[in-house]
């Protein structure tokens, strides 16, 4: 099955179609949706449009189950945010929630039915030592203890080594940027921090402004090699864009902001892909004067690569090219992440460590 023809994508494009799905469609939707982490979102879309009565009850039970998991995570995240806010209050800097945590805490459009595995925050780079100290005092410890991983994150990445809470076991990624220090593209996290919106009810918790939500989500998707969640992340972008473009000026503000932050590349990929895959009603790249310098052929090649890689959402939509696309994009993500004189020793080290029995490989950083 081609991913573009999958009933899952049809339902995401036009939730009303779910009313006419047959048993065979539902069988695929539940399998693909569960594997792609999108079953909760479909449940929320169906519930929101009053389609519950036309969905077979076994299918609805699976959607309820996914919504229940998402709801539980939302509660857990709100609690963690409260504790983070308390732990970091003495530092006196803004703490910006990113992605899943921001969606959940602020009730943004992608939040309904969405699940996630860790909490990402962005803080000013100058405050990192204080932030880390106060997190440690509140029970957050580094989950990567070996010296190489510590150096890898601290010297080259845009985040501290991932942290885990010693009692609650929750995962926390503390970012000071949205791209690695060594990345080919440079952006301006200080501008994202400056434009962040205060989250009511917390003294020091913020979420990125709408334009930056889209730009960060796109940057994350197209710069990291996590294609297992690729379709879910693309659907997040679709949810954000569908909600924000109701404001007629949004797209022009978004493209201006992308230029300011030097993120027109990932935004171009995102807008092109949501149009192809999810029929998101956004203007074309040429209408937005966002054409990539290297032209139409490159656009077609990149779109094909990304669409193929999103086939990793479920075995049924994998194409013969999916594995190759994932590999090429993995190489690309590393190419974008580090200059070659750092990358080759890093990959060599990772491959050697992987061969040592009983020792985990050096981490593939998670943004």
């Amino acid at each position, binding site marked *: 099955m081609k991913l573009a023809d999958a009933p899952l994508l049809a339902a995401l494009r036009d939730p009303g179609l779910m009313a006419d799905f047959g048993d065979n469609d539902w069988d695929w939707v539940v399998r693909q949706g569960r*594997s792609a982490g999108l079953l909760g979102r479909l449940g929320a879309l169906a519930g929101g449009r009053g389609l519950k009565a036309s969905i*077979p009850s076994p299918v609805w039970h699976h959607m309820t189950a996914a919504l229940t998991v998402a709801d539980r995570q939302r509660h857990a995240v709100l609690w963690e945010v409260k504790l983070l806010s308390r732990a970091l209050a003495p530092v006196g800097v803004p703490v910006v929630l990113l992605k899943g945590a921001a969606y959940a805490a602020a009730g943004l459009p992608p939040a309904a039915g969405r699940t996630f595995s860790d909490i990402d925050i962005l803080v000013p780079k100058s405050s990192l030592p204080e932030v880390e100290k106060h997190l440690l005092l509140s029970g957050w410890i580094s989950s990567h203890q070996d010296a190489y991983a510590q150096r890898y994150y601290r010297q080259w990445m845009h985040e501290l080594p991932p942290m885990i809470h010693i009692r609650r076991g929750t995962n926390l990624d503390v970012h000071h940027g949205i791209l690695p220090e060594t990345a080919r593209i440079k952006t301006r996290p200080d501008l994202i921090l400056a434009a962040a919106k205060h989250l009511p009810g917390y003294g020091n918790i913020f979420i990125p402004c709408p334009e930056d939500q889209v730009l960060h989500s796109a940057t994350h998707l197209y710069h990291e090699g996590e294609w297992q969640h690729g379709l879910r992340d693309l659907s997040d972008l679709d949810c954000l864009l569908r909600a924000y473009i109701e404001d007629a000026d949004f797209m022009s503000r978004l493209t201006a902001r992308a230029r300011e932050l030097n993120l027109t590349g990932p935004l171009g990929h995102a807008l092109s892909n949501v149009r192809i895959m999810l029929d998101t009603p956004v203007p074309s790249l040429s209408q937005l004067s966002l054409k990539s310098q290297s032209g139409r052929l490159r656009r077609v090649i990149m779109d094909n690569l990304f669409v193929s890689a999103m086939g990793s959402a479920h075995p049924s939509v994998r194409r013969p090219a999916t594995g190759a696309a994932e590999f090429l994009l993995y190489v690309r993500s590393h190419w974008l992440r580090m200059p070659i004189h750092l990358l080759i020793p890093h990959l060599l080290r990772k491959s050697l460590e992987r061969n040592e029995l009983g020792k985990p490989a050096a981490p593939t950083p998670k943004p």
Partner: protein
Amino acid sequence: MRLGDLSRDGLREKLHDGLILETGPFRTRIVSHTPEVLAGLELLYSDFSVHDDGFCDFHVQVDRVSGPRRYFRPQITFKFDGMEPFKPLPADHAFASLEWGLNYCIAGYAHHYLMLHAAVLEKNGRAVILPGDPGAGKSTLTAALSLSGFRLLSDELTLVDRDDGMLVPLARPVSLKNASIDIIRNFSPRAVLGDAAYDTHKGTVVHLKPSTESVRRAGEKAKPALIVFPRWIADTNTKLTHHSKADAFMDAANHAFNYDLLGSLGYDLVANLVDACDCHDFEYSQLPDAVQAFTELLG
């Protein structure tokens, strides 16, 4: 159609393409090429309904691991829609791993229900829930009761429907371990037992075929009436004592797979369940005495 209506060759062919097996509220599409799964299903699931097509809750596969291990100490893996949640196991664990795999699917995804790690049986329209810590003799007691005219709903997973608080049957085979296998064989000549899986993480495991009546009524929910915490103690007399409702609440919540996940709904479901039930501790050593005691309780 019932699974038992298929010939052995017909069943084998279905298992190659995907056999859709109905167990209570769930339909599972099973693919397997292993003789152990074929034999286990043929013997223990003959009364269950099978289907040709339609929506399936879970898609699973149990098959030999390919490569050199095909010939040297062959292994099998359980796949849930392409994912492998468990490490490969010895080939003779194939049928047991299908049973564990089905439990894994339900426990991991069926959050439409509050799920308790407990057995549940019914008689005279009243259901008894038997939560049990490992070694408490829950499965042995469940097997004996199910062979004595009690309707089996489940021996591992008690499903409480979140919509109405009723207990939902699975009626799948009862898993017996180690010494309890011979105890049940001796308890009733009518006990139909599958092939043993040796040296599993639970020791030797054998599955008991559920009664035809239990399977026939697997679409029929039951009303909770009793929660009984069984404990097998050697050479003791059968003894039924009061179990406080507050303790029963905590015990039931602790035995639930998804109490936490359901949040306030989980609290309400457990509270309503405990409210609706008389709660007891039960000590026993002899199965016939235990069956007598339960017959009186549910009379």
